[in-house]
């Protein structure tokens, strides 16, 4: 049972915003509904206020300056490139340092890892736990697959996108940089060391520093 209230115009004006929000208790709401039926002034205030909310809530009221989207997209892209360069600078010497650190302890295992013959790179080690449907980027004349936007993609004009599962089926190996989280750290580090070791002997190391390489 709803307790009926009596309201005057001032009370209605005070509560009209809450009325539109649907935040009134049923008794007050009913009283206001009845008041609107008989009070032309208050019903005019209600309709006007409702109109205000409706027209300002229309997205066309939020005009963007010309070219706003393009400038925003450009700034985001610049930010992505800067982040990528920072990571590149760090990783450029983190990888050799990590490789050297593991060299002493890992050398005795150097010949114990075998290479899957289907892999495009004889130095590669497949990754673990990459989601099969993850979209990755490859180029036909390379051996490594990357996350889109990775700074180590060569010949970007010839890149193509496919799933990680398909890339691995075709023998591509994960990029040591952008696929790092899927690599077995110890094996990757050890194999990076091996890659360094073989660098002088192996001419096809165009992407050698981005490989999870092995023997």
């Amino acid at each position, binding site marked *: 049972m709803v307790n009926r209230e009596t309201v005057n115009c001032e009370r209605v004006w005070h509560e009209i915003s809450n009325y539109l929000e649907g935040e009134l208790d049923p008794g007050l709401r009913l009283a206001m509904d009845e008041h609107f039926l008989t009070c032309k002034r208050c019903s005019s205030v209600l309709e006007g206020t409702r109109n*205000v909310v409706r027209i*300002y809530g229309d*997205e066309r*009221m939020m005009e963007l300056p010309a070219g*706003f989207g393009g400038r925003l997209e450009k700034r985001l892209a610049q930010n992505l490139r800067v982040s990528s360069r920072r990571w590149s600078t760090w990783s450029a010497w983190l990888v050799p340092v990590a490789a050297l650190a593991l060299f002493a302890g890992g050398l005795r295992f150097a010949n114990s890892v075998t290479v899957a013959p289907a892999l495009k790179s004889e130095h590669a080690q497949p990754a673990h736990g990459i989601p099969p449907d993850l979209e990755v980027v490859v180029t036909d004349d390379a051996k490594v697959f990357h996350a889109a*936007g990775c700074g180590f993609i060569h010949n970007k004009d010839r890149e193509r996108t496919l799933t990680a599962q398909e890339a691995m089926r075709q023998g591509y190996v994960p990029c040591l940089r952008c696929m790092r989280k899927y690599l077995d750290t110890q094996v990757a580090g050890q194999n990076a060391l091996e890659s360094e070791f073989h660098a002088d002997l192996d001419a096809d190391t165009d992407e050698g520093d981005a490989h999870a390489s092995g023997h």
Partner: protein
Amino acid sequence: MSEANVVLHNPDQAGTTRERDLIARVQRGQNELFYELVRPYERRVYAAALAILRNQTDAEDVAQEAVLKAFANIRQFRAEARFSTWLIQITVNEALMRRRRERVVVMEGIDDRRDEESDYAPRDFADWREVPSEALERKEVRQKLADALASLDRKYREVFVMRDMEQLNIQETAEALGISVASVKTRLLRARLMLRDLLAGGWERGWFSRQPFEKGNKPW
């Protein structure tokens, strides 16, 4: 749901499937998809910054900063929140910080010092009919509406923009602006009634009619 609610707000749901998918992919490292994620909200981001800063150049700069900040923190975004609300709140924080940092003290009218708790009585009781949607296609109509909004004191304008244009709820508006829920409600009531008064005269002068210069509405 009450009719009033249906009329008032239709907040987007807590992320469409596509939006959730985009968020997950960006969080996994597909950074180039981030712009696609924010593009539907770029108007709202800009409008939130403009409501606080009242300067188009500053608003655009802050909007960009807010988007970059959202990108930097995307991994902290949790799926139970609305992405749009999260993005708007970052924008409001950035804009408020910019205003404090640059001491952008906009000289507000005497109304800003008026007791916001005092009742506001409507001044104009002209009959309104529903504003035709096509009216908003006209630049001069949008300009009149923007001018009316800009004439409000800052504290009323900010609450109105967050609630009625950005579609944050009352609680979210209070959190974004750092004020109480009670203050949001009081300021919202005032803002809506003041705008109604400001625009009621325009309605009588035919601003929103389908043909702007019908008989009796000639501008000369």
